[in-house]
């Protein structure tokens, strides 16, 4: 075969593989959306679920998912930002930091069900936090932290070294150089990482079954006092998320419309992740433009 033919053949194979991936993805998405969306209505999105009768919604689960996501990011983002900045900019190259990096790698490949059981034993049982949002958020932080830290570190490392020298040569301190020059340039990369992690958190079930629990207590959306038991903001109430709800009704749902609810909830889950990704990407671009004044 001559070079031209080989090239054509290779290209055809690669295109075919790409097409297969796209078809599988489109099929999955299409199936979930087509079977789910007809069941989605405002009523479905806002009413509490019912255990035994038809007509229940996913209102509380949906709120729980978002609340848990925000809480998890609130805890894990500052931690990973600090750790990432340290590893990328300050950490000396020695065995200790190599050990830290390796620990992060290992932690990132931990199965989520193990994270969940660990969270159950430590937070739920040992620390007596019970099945609660906060237990779930901390467990998910463990789940999230390695990837986020790695992402922050990589994004910072992708900013050319010359930019750091430019800042230092102007008499800026290392801290100012990092926070005011390097970080803004790394921001789009960091945001992409947060989005990916947010998607993981939003769709995570295994780690939450044993930590945030499987029951959606009735909450009163007019009560915003976080210390009140029926408040949506209460950190110590059990909180079944959307993903856990889907898992639960599929394994032990006894309501007559379990199948429809499961389909509808899956569609909502996917659409939510989609919206979240798109808006975060848009936000990242806007932020980058504002911080760097580029057109």
């Amino acid at each position: 075969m001559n070079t031209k033919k080989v090239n054509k053949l290779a290209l055809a194979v690669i295109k075919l593989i790409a097409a297969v991936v796209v078809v599988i993805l489109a099929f999955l998405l299409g199936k979930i959306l087509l079977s789910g969306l007809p069941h989605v209505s405002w009523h479905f999105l806002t009413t509490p679920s019912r255990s035994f009768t038809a007509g229940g919604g996913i209102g509380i689960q949906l709120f729980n998912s978002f609340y848990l996501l925000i809480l998890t990011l609130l805890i894990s983002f500052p931690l990973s930002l600090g750790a990432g900045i340290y590893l990328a900019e300050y950490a000396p190259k020695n065995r200790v930091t190599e050990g830290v990096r390796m620990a992060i790698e290992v932690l990132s490949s931990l199965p989520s069900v193990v994270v969940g059981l660990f969270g159950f034993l430590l937070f739920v049982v040992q620390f007596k936090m019970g099945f609660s949002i906060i237990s779930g958020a901390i467990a998910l932080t463990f789940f999230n932290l390695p990837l986020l830290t790695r992402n922050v570190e990589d994004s910072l490392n992708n900013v050319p070294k010359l930019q750091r020298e430019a800042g230092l040569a102007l008499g800026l301190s290392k801290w100012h150089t990092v926070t005011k020059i390097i970080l803004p340039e790394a921001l789009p990369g960091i945001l992409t990482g947060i989005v990916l992690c947010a998607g993981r958190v939003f769709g995570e079930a295994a780690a939450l079954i044993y930590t945030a629990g499987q029951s959606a207590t009735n909450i009163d959306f007019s009560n915003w006092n976080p210390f009140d038991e029926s408040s949506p903001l209460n950190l110590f109430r059990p909180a079944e998320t959307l993903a856990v709800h889907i898992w639960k009704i599929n394994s032990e749902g006894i309501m007559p419309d379990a199948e429809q609810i499961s389909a509808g909830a899956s569609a909502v889950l996917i659409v939510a992740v989609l919206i979240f990704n798109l808006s975060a990407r848009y936000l990242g671009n806007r932020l980058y433009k504002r911080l760097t004044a580029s057109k």
Partner: protein
Amino acid sequence: MKAGKYDLNDTSIMNFDKQKQEIALSTHDLQVYYGNKHAFYDGNLQFERYKITALIGASGSGKSTFLRSLNRMNDDVATVTGEIMYRGIDINSKKINLYEMRKQIGMVFQRPNPFSKSIKENITFALKENGIKDKQKLDEIVEKSLRGAALWDEVKDDLNKSALALSGGQQQRLCIARAIAMGPDILLMDEPCSALDPISTLKVEETMHELKKKYTIIIVTHNMQQASRVSDYTAFFHMGHVIEYGKTKDIFTNPKIQATEDYVSGNFG
């Protein structure tokens, strides 16, 4: 390269008459080590104020190493011993406030490295960090330093555009403007034209002629025409040693050391 054939102790280093010439910066017994590797030996050089001094030599001869030691940019990677005297102070001392020192001794790098901010912000950013908040004053400094770097006429209508949209030569002049906006005394330039085309190079060189009225410039260059065009003094570096230091004219037309003669005439090695 048969560079080993030269006697590294056979040197000719000019000294200035402190009565007649003002010394902006001088090094005494400067040594630079990368780990165990001795990269630069026995630097005893003086730099006259308001003059351009070129550092020439082959790659790996230690000239960039030497230059980057002068404003302590090598602190993280190298050990530098000896004295660097600036205004009667040894700035190689541990006690020196690096950040204040670097405002006095600015630096322009090999590749243009503007921040991904607007043209104006590239200049005002470090000033703001230093507490200059007055808008009018900032605008004045922006114009003054852009004029100083011969860039004002090209960018005065686009000050809020991204610096990354500029050409390489313009970016490098912006970096010069950014450095002189800090009001430094000395400008260190590390092969500032190596990434630029000939026309941009010429513009930067013209800029340097203007700049030396107000600043003392030390420039590392691989381009010997450039060294002979722009500089007043030239130091020839070889294998971590300064072999010859004198007036540029002498170095290029009447060098005292064989190694220098071979290098400037292209018969090196």
